[in-house]
């Protein structure tokens, strides 16, 4: 499918023509439906197109990984979703999967193998760092500015991906001003464990407000992260301080597209 300057091959169409794409891009529910995060999915595809990466998406055949169900205790629903998805992977002989969402990444990489999946799973920051190292993707010509990077729990603590996002940001000309709690010490945005989909329990503060305060302490204009749910939570945090005009919450994929003008 070719629309508004991005090319998104659909797995069923490509496969029917006898081609097996190198990667499956797992878009995830946020990429498909979330108004804000659709832009990130599109930015990421721009990068894939720019690099001529051989990929496809499942499109209407993609369904929930089962992550929110599993983390809310519904193991039955999770396993049903997982078995269905694993069947789809087998049908299209999928070998490598790229995700933009850390939650999809974690569940596909760490949890699906228990149910028979044997795909290599990458978070896009891992591959982009690799492509930068291989000089496939150019780096920034000029120094941009500085930003702070919020570690998504399911990329950071859960899978120890701390350096790749930072390396990419530096390659894009950004200095990183770390929050007081960063990397393995990072505070959750408040969305994990299916919290995103429910009201929070009574307390004296919202978690996303606390994390936003920590980001504001760095006096940055750019809060960068690499998770759809973190983007929503931190954007809400910025709105609660009425600072959405001055301070932007962005995904790494958007930073790359902006910087390289692709």
């Amino acid at each position, binding site marked *: *499918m070719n*629309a*508004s300057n*991005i090319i*998104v091959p*659909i797995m069923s169409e490509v496969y029917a023509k006898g081609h097996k794409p190198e990667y499956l891009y797992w*878009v995830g*529910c946020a990429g*498909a*439906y979330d108004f804000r995060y*659709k*832009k990130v999915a*599109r930015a990421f595809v721009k990068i894939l197109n720019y690099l001529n990466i051989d990929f496809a*998406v499942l*499109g*209407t055949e*993609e*369904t*929930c990984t*089962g992550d*929110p*169900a599993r*983390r*809310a*205790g*519904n*193991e*039955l*629903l999770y*396993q049903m979703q997982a078995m269905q998805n694993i069947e789809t992977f087998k049908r299209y002989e999928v070998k490598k999967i790229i995700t933009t969402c850390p939650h999809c990444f*974690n569940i596909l990489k*760490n*949890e699906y193998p228990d*149910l028979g999946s044997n795909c290599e799973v990458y978070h896009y920051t891992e591959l982009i760092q690799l492509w930068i190292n291989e000089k496939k993707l150019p780096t920034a010509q000029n120094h941009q500015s500085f930003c702070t990077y919020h570690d998504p*729990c*399911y990329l950071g*603590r*859960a*899978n*120890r991906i701390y350096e790749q996002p930072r390396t990419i940001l530096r390659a894009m000309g950004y200095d990183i001003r770390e929050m007081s709690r960063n990397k*393995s*010490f990072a*505070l*959750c945005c408040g*969305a*994990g*464990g*299916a*919290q995103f*989909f*429910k*009201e929070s*329990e*009574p*307390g*004296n*503060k919202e*978690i996303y407000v*606390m*994390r936003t305060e920590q980001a504001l302490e760095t006096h940055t204009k750019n809060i960068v992260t690499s998770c759809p749910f973190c983007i929503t939570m931190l954007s809400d945090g910025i709105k609660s301080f009425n600072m959405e005009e001055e301070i932007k919450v962005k995904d790494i994929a958007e930073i790359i597209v902006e910087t390289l003008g692709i």
Partner: protein
Amino acid sequence: MTTSQMVFIITLILTIVAFSITLYRLYCFFKLTQKHSVSNWGKRIGLVLKIALGQTKIFRFPFAGLLHAITFWGFLVILFGSIEMVIDGVFGMHKSLSFLGGLYRIIMGFGDIFAFLICIAVIIFIIRRITHTVKRFDGAEMKHKNHADALLALTLILLLMISLLGMNYSESILNKHTPYPISRLLTVLFPACKCQAHHFYTIFWWIHIELIFVFANILPYSKHFHIFTSIPNVFLSRLEPLGKLNTMESITHELQLMMNPDLTSNISEPLVIKRFGVKDVEDVTWKTYLDSLACTQCGRCTSVCPASQTGKKLSPRKLLMDLRYRMNEKAPKLLKEPEFNDDKSYLGNYISLEEIWACTLCNACAQECPVNIYHPQIIIDLRRYLVLEEGKAQGGLQAVFANIENNGAPWPYSQAERLNWINA
């Protein structure tokens, strides 16, 4: 056999018997719990070297971490002297391991330095406890008895170290060539007559060894049981990434039967599932129970928990403390009467729904725990019981389940719209 030898042997036997009874009681408790398999033994040795001996996780809080590491490494060195004291006591010998020569002098010398450093560390620990300067030592679950427990253990450690230094000091008065740098300095600062030193040495020797025996038997009933349980707990802890939850094989099994009913006839031994998830203590695995015995109530987990920090009721530390309390309450009765039921359970009477649903599964607690406890296991097991057995999920989540089932997404959007993002 001398009288003192006999007294020593009797107290040693009493200590071993009392300790064995405690261990047997715990063994019976463990037998009530569920199975959990452990593999990859080689990797586990590395884990112990790094996290236990290297104290890498405790150093994430640098100041308290350093004080703890000194105490821990000191204990390891001093343990050598304690073993010698037991040999001496049983066989009526004096300095039975001194045949090791230079090495012996080095170990005993470091033991002396560590005894002094541990005294300083423990005094700082006591002051921090008494003055309430450390926020993580407080919280709803931290009752008076928990603080008393901590202070008792700290006092015992302090007395152990003072008596050890007393021994070394008395010995250094009698003999100027002892290997003890600190104690020899003490003899210069506080000179004493040789005539009394011999008696002092004997008194300190007995105080030290008997305190060890007392300490060993108090520990299993205290939070300081971690002195015994933390290294095994690290050794047996998870090797998977923090983000990976365990797969419920019972569910996989049910699903396979649903999709392929013919399988039923092939199964010789049907899988007996007592309960999905965890409601009470007998539903947890032995590893989760060991976690509760290894918990030192240090509160590092709670201090980094996003829910706790924003005033919510959840405290990861409480999950472990309550598990241990509930086991102490229920297990003895369950052992007498397998069908015992007091209409109470860990879920509900100890841990409320409000606590369980406040967790973001961010893994900050597990990342921080110095003894590698995996708190999210308890949260997910309790949620699994609620959802799978009682069909209870916090408000919005029921809708999420329905959406995933019907549209393949947590939101109520049609699957046909999955590609709309391309044109957005």
